[in-house]
């Protein structure tokens, strides 16, 4: 078994193990090991943010493009998913929640993917900080445009209004007031499946011929171009895949709340996901999963600090960045871990000798 395959299997294993632990905790079959209500409410957002972080890591870590507008794709996915779900009910009286959720997530992925292609064509011509600011700009444009749109379903028809709330039928998406009266059909199990799907797509892409091409372009665009790689094609591949996954996560997120407004997908959300990616390690998929899960839980765990919790969150964020990135702190940390290792290996050697003597 090669090293990459083993590492990927460990990643899948962690996710599956975490899911089983959560299921046991929800059922409460072991005494004293039961999930609180507030924690249970965090399960679907955690799944969503894990998928968001892994998909953003594909753009930022693997393709090497800093994107500050990931929440834009999430919002496109969320609202197309919500509209799809309502339309299925009104057009076909479809009551099966699982099928509706699946179709809504597919719709979310498709529309976010279309947005990804449209945005990718101009954005990927730029580089570095300019690319970052344009993705930020697109994220804000999507949010602003969503604030002026109105959707309603009437039988099999879907009405769209621009700056015009007087539509026939049942209003599904109401401009600045957002989507109202959404059926909360998202489930934790589907979140788990989505994480596995995301991992399958991203890990397979990374370890494929295309993935190697994407990483080669990240490391040296000019060298990659000179050996005949089509830079635009591979960059688009990473960017659009990432957008599709974000859209699917968005659909799951949207269908988890009864009202969803475009304001939920502000610039702050994009930044939050970026923080998960950077803290988990840029380009490290497993790190993204762990960071997203822990950091979504952290404000919940800091409840006891109440008013100070966001302050503590900010301080933790800065300290972690300083500890992992400053050369001084790094040398201090490595000397400490070196000493611990030396201590442990010394003990091992001693115990080994003692064992020999016995």
């Amino acid at each position, binding site marked *: 078994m090669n090293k990459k395959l083993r590492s990927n299997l460990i990643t899948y294993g962690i996710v599956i193990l975490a899911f089983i632990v959560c299921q046991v905790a929800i059922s409460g079959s072991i005494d004293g090991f039961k999930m609180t209500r507030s924690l249970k409410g965090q399960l679907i957002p955690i799944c969503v943010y894990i998928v968001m972080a892994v998909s953003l890591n594909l753009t*930022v870590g693997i393709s090497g493009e*800093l994107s500050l507008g990931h929440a834009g794709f999430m919002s496109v996915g969320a609202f197309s998913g919500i509209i799809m779900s309502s339309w299925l009910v009104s057009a076909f009286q479809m009551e099966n929640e699982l099928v509706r959720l699946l179709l809504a997530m597919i719709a979310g992925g498709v529309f976010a993917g279309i947005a990804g292609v449209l945005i990718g064509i*101009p954005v990927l*011509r*730029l*580089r570095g*900080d*300019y690319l*970052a*600011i*344009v993705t*930020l*700009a*697109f994220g*804000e*444009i999507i949010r*602003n*445009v969503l*604030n*002026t749109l109105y959707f309603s379903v009437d039988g099999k028809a879907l009405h769209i209004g621009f*700056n015009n709330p007087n539509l026939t039928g049942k209003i599904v998406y109401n401009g*600045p007031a957002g989507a109202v009266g959404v059926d909360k059909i998202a489930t934790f199990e589907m979140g788990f499946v989505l994480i596995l799907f995301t991992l399958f797509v991203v890990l397979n892409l990374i370890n494929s011929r295309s993935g190697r091409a994407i990483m080669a372009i990240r490391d040296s665009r*000019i*060298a990659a171009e000179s050996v005949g790689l089509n830079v635009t094609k591979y960059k688009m591949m990473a960017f659009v895949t990432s957008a599709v996954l974000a859209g699917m996560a968005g659909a799951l997120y949207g269908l988890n709340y009864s009202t969803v407004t475009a304001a939920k997908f502000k*610039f702050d959300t994009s*930044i939050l996901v*970026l*923080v998960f990616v*950077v*803290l988990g390690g*840029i380009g490290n998929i497993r790190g993204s999963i762990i960071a997203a899960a822990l950091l979504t839980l952290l404000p919940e765990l800091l409840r006891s600090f109440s*008013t*100070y919790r*966001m*302050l503590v*969150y*900010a*301080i933790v*964020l*800065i300290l972690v*960045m*300083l500890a*992992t*990135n*400053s*050369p*001084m*702190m790094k040398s201090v940390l490595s000397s400490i871990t070196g000493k611990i290792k030396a201590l442990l290996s010394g003990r091992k050697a001693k115990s080994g000798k003692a064992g020999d003597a016995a």
Partner: protein
Amino acid sequence: MISLLSHLMNGLSLGSVYAIIALGYTMVYGIAKMLNFAHGDVIMIGAYISFCAIHYWNLPPALALVAAMAVCTVLGIVIERLAYKPLRQATSLAVLITAIGMSYLLQNSALLIWGSNTKSFPDMINVPAISLLGGELIIKGEAIVTILACVVIMIALTLFTSRTKMGKAMRGVSEDKGAAELMGINVNLTISVTFAIGSALAAIAGVLLCTAYPALTPTTGSMPGIKAFTAAVFGGIGSIPGAMVGGILLGVIEILGKAYISMELGDAFVFAVLIIVLLVKPTGLLGKKIHEKV
């Protein structure tokens, strides 16, 4: 025609505020090569300090401005020393995340100190309005002061960077940090001075912004911060006249877009223009083109 002129004046005045904020972004970017996301929140702190100075300590407006500038200058230097200096060698993304953490820290500190209710900012500028064209076009006193302040700051900064020794050091550091150090330039001091100037400008911008839009909350600075950052990129990041041009154009576009196209889509319009400009001229309006070497 008259309404167009008055919208233009409003745009100029808002754009001047953006320009002053953008100057802080662009100077820090030029020298430290980092996006200082906490800059928008320094604006907010500056506005709160001057609010307190007037409201609680009963200082005259001019002294309140000086107090805000002093606090922000110290704040800027402290932030740089504590959070950014240890990360000079780190990747730009790591610095970016630290700056975002700093931005959260400032916002939440402000939330704890001043609470979440909106403070109504006192009118600090007592300049009479000018009426032109037989009283049909009225230009507010604040607008005149804001535009004048922007022009004065712009001229002073240009002179500072081109004529003084410190300005020369700044240009040197922004071009090549290593070579500047070899020439005997104190790089740490230069970066500190840059942060100090940027933060003092942020305090001025905070006061001007809150005089025009008197609702002060802990998140007051974030959206203008993002827009000013956009303005800096728009004009070509790292360039002082670029920040000025970018800021003013952005303000005018925003106000005209809101007035004539759609109130809700005003911001979208600003960002759309930015994207078009970057596609035609990828380094911004006045940015320098850097050739890539193999």
